[in-house]
């Protein structure tokens, strides 16, 4: 059987990611961060890393419940805030989103979920300005690759420390950072509607898909090779197609080229230009 090594040395990863947050925030003259906290493992990791990088007093945790959000999510987020002793704010989004959702009868869950995710983005960026902190992202590599995210919603951020870690790699890191066991073991959920779970919606487990993504993306296995070594054909083709179809969520919108020098094609500078 092919070796699929998704293990990480949590000390090494922690050192790199806290250094990254500190460097990318302080080099442009900031010293603070804001994190949208869902009560799940991904935002917990981003929050803990940011607190370790900048000091907990410099990280604002934002709770953004909707009326149907699970009480557990809100409670788990509060546990993390209490554990770190970081400043926090709770801004329910129900009154922001319900007027839009209520304009049409029978709006789909996908539309409602996207509206909520984008409302939370608006709050994060508003608090970013108020708190003078950069928005630290909470998207992991699995959801970025699968496109399991709302464009300009939960995917929006200033920097993302965890976007190169698969979902299953976040658990050991979260544990090392001191995220409580209840949060480590509960089923991952976007909590956009009652009873939603990531794995239920996606139709496969993170454990399965992370192994496949590791082979396809990190190790450059061809889809046929993944099938040969035992992954189900339908699953492999479904994931490959998902990756392809969601590329638009991973890049800036293409600019139609007219001039000799165009942003995105031949006007090339890092964001850290001059710092």
């Amino acid at each position, binding site marked *: 059987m092919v070796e699929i090594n998704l293990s990480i*040395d949590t000390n090494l990863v922690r050192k790199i990611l806290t250094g990254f947050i500190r460097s990318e925030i302080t080099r442009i003259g900031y010293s603070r961060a804001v994190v949208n906290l869902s009560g799940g493992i991904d935002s917990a990791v981003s929050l803990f890393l940011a607190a370790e990088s900048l000091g907990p007093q410099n990280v604002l945790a934002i709770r953004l419940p909707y009326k149907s959000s699970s009480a557990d999510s809100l409670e788990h987020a509060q546990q993390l805030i209490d554990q770190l002793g970081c400043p926090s704010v709770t801004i329910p989004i129900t009154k922001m989103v319900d007027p839009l959702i209520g304009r049409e009868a029978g709006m789909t869950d996908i539309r409602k979920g996207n509206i909520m995710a984008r409302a939370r983005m608006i709050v994060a960026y508003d608090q970013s300005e108020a708190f003078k902190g950069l928005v630290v992202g909470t998207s992991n590599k699995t959801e970025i690759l699968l496109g399991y995210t709302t464009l300009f919603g939960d995917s929006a951020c200033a920097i993302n420390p965890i976007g190169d870690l698969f979902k299953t790699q976040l658990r050991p890191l979260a544990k090392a950072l001191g995220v409580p066991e209840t949060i480590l073991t509960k089923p991952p959920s976007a909590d956009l509607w009652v009873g939603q779970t990531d794995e239920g919606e996606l139709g496969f487990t993170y454990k399965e898909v992370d192994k496949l993504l590791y082979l396809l993306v990190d190790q450059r296995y061809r889809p046929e090779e993944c099938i040969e070594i035992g992954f189900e054909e339908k699953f492999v083709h479904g994931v490959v197609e998902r990756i392809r179809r969601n590329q638009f969520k991973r890049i800036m919108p293409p600019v139609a080229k007219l001039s000799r020098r165009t942003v995105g094609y031949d006007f*090339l*500078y890092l964001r850290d230009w001059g*710092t």
Partner: protein
Amino acid sequence: MKLNLALAQINTKLGDIESNLEKHLALTKQAWQDGMDLLVFPELSLTGYVLQDLVPSVACSPEAEDPVFHHLLDASRDIDLVIGFVDEDTRHRFYIASAYLSRGEIVHIHHKVYLPTYGLFDEGRFFASGDAVHAFDTRYGRVGMLICEDFWHASPPYLLWQDGADLFLLSSASPGRGLNGESKLETSAWVEHINQAYASLFTTFIAHANRTGFEDGLIFGGGSTVFDPNGNLVVQAPYFEEALTKAEIDLNQLHRTRASLPLLRDERPELLQHELERILHGRN
């Protein structure tokens, strides 16, 4: 003969030469005060690494009249220096370059030969590639310089060895990558492995200055090393942190190692040449 060698494992500001120059001069002064003879800076130490369209605006000409090199040459009166910079030649081609400065003079310039343009790298898009690998004489013996991808290939170190270099000064700005559960990144382990191998195979000193810090999401891993002609680690800088890492190396070790392990004496470059002629040109 003892050589007090220091590796300037620094972070840089992307495209901000003035600030980077200031750091070079401060560290040079410190190394000199600490009794160092030679100080090696990493690849593109004056400019930062992912320059992209900044390349033309950060290029220098390594000459006394250049406002940047003027200061560095001045600083090299006390201590020999290896500097990483963008060299613009008279025909306005841009190279990733290392300069060896000593006693106010430019002793040698190396242009990076192998420009990685794969994976996360895009050097071939922005730079011209060098076309020479030459050793050169210094007051500490014959030396060779290579830059990052140059020594991921086996042939440039081999050429320097045959050209007489007993001390290799390697510089890099290597974005660290690769998790496998071990306590260091895969790229750090790899480069330590090959540098130790060069020291062992060529019975020579290998000093490597890598940079640190971040540029966007890329981390430069540090972990600069010096290996001796027996392949033993003399000193290693920390990972991920800036450091001025010092080593006293005993150049007489070359005598002792090569007296017992005459790999250089027994090497047959003419055999290599003959076989390469056959391989490349079908000649027997």
